[in-house]
C-alpha cells in the first residue's frame, strides 16, 4: 500500500523529476499548502485514517505521512 500511495503522491505533485520518499516536501520539492493537504487527504483515503490538525506542522516528507498513516491504521486495526 505504501508503493500505491507513493505513486499517487507523485501524481498529485506532478513534478518532472521523481519525488523521493525522504525529500523535504517544502524545501526540496517546493510543495505548497494545497499540495500538502492533497497528499494528506490521499493518505487518509488510502489508509482509512484521519490526521490530526497539529500533525500538519510536523510532517516534512512523504515518509512522515506514510509512517503516521501506517501506524494509525495498525492502531485502529487493534
Amino acid at each position, binding site marked *: *500500500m505504501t508503493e500505491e500511495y507513493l505513486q499517487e503522491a507523485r501524481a498529485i505533485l*506532478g513534478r518532472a523529476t521523481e519525488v523521493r520518499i525522504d525529500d523535504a516536501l517544502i524545501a526540496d520539492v517546493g*510543495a*505548497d*499548502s*494545497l*499540495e*500538502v*493537504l492533497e497528499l*494528506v*487527504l490521499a493518505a*487518509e*483515503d*488510502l*489508509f*482509512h485514517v*484521519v*490526521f*490530526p*490538525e497539529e500533525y*500538519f*506542522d510536523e510532517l516534512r516528507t512523504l515518509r512522515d505521512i506514510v509512517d503516521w498513516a501506517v501506524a494509525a*491504521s495498525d492502531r485502529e*486495526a487493534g
Partner: protein
Amino acid sequence: MPTKGRRVYLRAISTEDYDWLYQLEASPERLPWYRHAGVSPPPERFADSLWAGVIAQFAIASRATDTPIGVVAAYRYDARNGHARLAGVLRPDFERRGWPLEGFSLFLDYVFETFPIRKLYGEVAAPNAEAFRSSFGSTCVQEGTLKGHQYMMGSYVDTHVVAIWRETWLQRASQRRERIARRSSVSP
C-alpha cells in the same frame, strides 16, 4: 452536500462572531488585503459592511476545538452573467498550515451546488498566491494580472485575477468521490 470536512466545518455566522471577525478583518496585518482595502471600518457599521453584497458567508471552524479559524464568502453576485466574487481570510496562526484550506473546498462545493454560478472570481496578491500556486492552471485559471496593483512589504506587487469554473470544480469533486469509492472497495 457536506459542510463538514475532516478537520474543519462551515457554520453560520452569528452576532457573537462579530468581535473576532472585526479583530481579524480590521487588524493592521489584514486590513490592507481584505474587503476593506486598508480603510478601517467603524465598529458600529462593521456588521453592515460584513454582509454588503454577500450571497453566502460562513465561519470556518476547527472540528477538534470548535474554534473559528477564518471566514469565507461569495459576494457581488451577477445573476445575469452567472458569476460572483470569492473572498476568504484565515486567522494568522492558521495560515500556511494546509488543513484549514479544506474550509474553502467545502465552501466551493456549497456555492456551486446552491447557486447557478458559472464561475467565481478571486483576486490574490502575487506573494500570497504561493500557498496554492499548484492549483493555477488546473482548479484555478489565471485570467489576468493587475500589474503593481498592491503595495505590500515595501513594494508594489502584482495582483492575480483567478477564476474557478463550475464545471472544473464539480468534475474535480466527482473524480475525488470516485477515487474514494474505488479505495473503499480495496481492503486496507
